[in-house]
């Protein structure tokens, strides 16, 4: 009998064409995802006279540089950004790629659209020139971000050279408390293992807490694997996964569906398979969580207090902490709940899905925004579904802005940024210095917590606002 293998190893072995004596493996890419950033790769193919090897395994959607204020090119003020978006359609046509460009109602953030369209499937090796490609692992895929040279290499060869990463299993067991979401789970994990806690590893999330999550919640968890340094994050497919995929536009159908199901059921990690590292988390320890600093590992329960550099013995660490506290405009020891916010961003590939907008709307309903707040759906489909449910009116009647789908303020590439020294509650994934605009102070939290901050104007424990059901 063959040795027991992890899910990651099964996918790796299937996708691996060869491994050289020096340990480098040539992997075949089943799905190659593109966005406006791929324009340079298309230009290089043209310049070097190469073909896009597998247009039928390539898919793109415009997300990073589009305006969230309208659906036409004219809505993009900046000529450089406009050019990036404008090139998507002609490139897609020339190279024969299915690409959701501006005006397509299915367009949206690539990590929202992939699962939504059924392009993301168990057992596939998926790459994209974006670090949050780890998101797709929620359906049992091995998915990771690559740089532009690797992106071009995949365009030309459909292959990628990689050294086999290590494996790490994070097991979360138990029921989540009232008001605690998937976002709190992953922020808590990163707070526990650190921003480089999973560097060089592929994470498999397991345990009863993960098992009982919906696909959208699992997508949120896997999305931020990169924030713990992980090469990828993944969750074994199960009935929740199959129910989610069935009937989606690019999911297998008919006889292919049965064949796919048989394949997918072989994927979960075998009993007895070992991981290079094991981490266990008790769900009962997780509270609604907020980041206070400039690394996603700076995560604390909303009931917590700002750390005090005076209590840090190591001089280098003390100086780094002081820098962070200065940048964030914080007072050591102050309760997180005392912080007032200047703006709220609800959206991104982390928390821009329908269930996130529902959770935010449940908090907002019957209340008014106490500060600037914007909601950016993760895709055109999410937007349409939210509007069909009347969520847009809940937000707009409370004074929130209701925008078009895109990455928006998560990375700020499209010009959606805050002003220096503003404090923002954000459902995105990175609180890095300047990420959401020079001098902007970003605090990461769940969609419900961001909504609570919007209607109260300060960090608020959502458990005190929501009614228990």
């Amino acid at each position, binding site marked *: 009998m063959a040795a027991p293998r992890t899910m990651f190893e099964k996918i790796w072995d299937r996708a691996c*064409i*060869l491994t*050289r004596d*020096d*340990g480098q493996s*040539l992997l075949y890419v*089943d*799905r190659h995802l593109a966005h406006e950033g791929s324009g*340079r790769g298309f230009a290089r193919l043209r310049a070097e006279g190469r073909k896009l090897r*597998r247009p*039928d*395994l390539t*898919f793109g959607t415009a997300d990073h540089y589009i305006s969230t204020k309208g659906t036409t090119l004219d809505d993009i003020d900046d000529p*450089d*950004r406009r050019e990036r978006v404008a090139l998507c359609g002609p490139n897609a046509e020339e190279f024969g*790629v*299915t690409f959701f460009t501006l005006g397509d109602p299915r367009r949206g953030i690539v990590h929202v659209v992939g699962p939504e369209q059924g*392009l993301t499937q168990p057992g596939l090796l998926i790459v994209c*020139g*974006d670090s949050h490609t780890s998101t797709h692992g929620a359906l049992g895929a091995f998915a*990771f*971000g*690559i*740089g*532009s*040279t*690797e992106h071009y290499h995949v365009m*030309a*060869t*459909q*292959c990628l*050279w990689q*050294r086999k990463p290590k494996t790490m299993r994070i097991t979360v067991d138990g029921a989540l408390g009232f008001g605690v979401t998937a976002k709190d789970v992953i922020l808590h994990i990163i707070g526990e293992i650190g*921003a*480089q806690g999973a*560097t*060089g590893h592929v994470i498999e999330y397991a345990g009863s807490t993960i098992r009982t999550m919906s696909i959208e919640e699992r997508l949120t968890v896997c999305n931020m694997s*990169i924030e713990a*340094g992980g090469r990828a994050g993944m969750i074994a497919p199960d009935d929740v996964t199959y129910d989610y995929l069935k009937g989606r536009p*690019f*999911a*297998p*159908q008919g006889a*292919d569906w049965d*064949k*796919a199901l048989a*394949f997918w059921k072989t994927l979960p990690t075998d009993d007895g398979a070992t991981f290079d590292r094991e981490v266990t988390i008790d769900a009962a320890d997780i509270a609604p969580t907020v980041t206070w600093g400039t690394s996603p*590992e700076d995560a604390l329960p909303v009931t917590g207090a700002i750390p005090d550099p005076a209590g840090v013995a190591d001089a*280098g660490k003390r100086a*780094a902490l002081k*820098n962070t506290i200065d940048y964030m405009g914080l007072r050591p020891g102050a309760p997180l709940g005392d912080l007032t916010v200047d703006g709220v961003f609800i959206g991104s590939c982390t928390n821009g899905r329908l269930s996130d907008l529902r959770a935010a709307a449940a908090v907002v309903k019957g209340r008014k925004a106490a500060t600037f707040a914007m909601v950016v759906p993760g895709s055109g489909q999410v937007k349409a579904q939210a509007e069909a449910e009347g969520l847009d009116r809940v937000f707009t009647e409370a004074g929130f802005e209701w925008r078009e789908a895109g990455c928006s303020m998560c990375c*700020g*590439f499209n010009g959606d940024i805050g002003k*220096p020294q503003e404090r923002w509650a954000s459902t995105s994934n*990175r609180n*890095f*210095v*300047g*990420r959401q605009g*020079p001098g902007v102070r970003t605090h990461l939290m769940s969609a419900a917590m961001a909504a609570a901050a919007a209607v109260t104007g300060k960090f608020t424990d959502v458990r005190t606002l929501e009614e228990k059901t």
Partner: protein
Amino acid sequence: MEAFTRLTAVAAPFDRPNTDTDQITPGRFLTRWDADWAKVLFHDLRFDGNGAERPDFILNQAPFRDAKILVANVNFACGSSRESAVHALVAYGFRAVIAPSFGDIFFNNASKNGLLTFVQDTDTCDRLRQQLHANPGAEMSIDLEAQRYSGPDGAHYAFKVDSFRKYVLLNGLDDIDLTMQYEDKIAAHETALRTEIPWLSTKA
């Protein structure tokens, strides 16, 4: 791509831990591929809101302006996959970065652009940075073939590098030609894939 063989150059200490690629090339500069990357490097750490140099930033101090080696701190270049982070370091003149750990994607991107990256333990990196602070403008030497380098005090160290990465760096090679030497095997994999997973097409 410029090959990397041996280098003797000024080294700069970069103390900030968990430096993400947004610090190396802030997102708002990523609207053009032909940006002045040398100017963009560490932009908001290097320049204030008016574009004036921040005098306390390491690369704004005379002895370090011409540095080609960066000794960094833990989790250097974590975060976004933007390869502009590598382009900016290379455009400024950096040829090597030494750190206790790196963001995985940056680490892969680096060697594709002739930037040598290698890991040294935290104590060694801390010591090297302290020595560089104490001796501004001190040089370090790196010999990729021998996988050896010398610190600012002349002490010799060994480092590990993936042999594939080393080969590519030493020869300034492009991976695509190397990959296509395996065309037969790639084509065979594609044929098998059409039977194993016939429902893969992204064509509507």
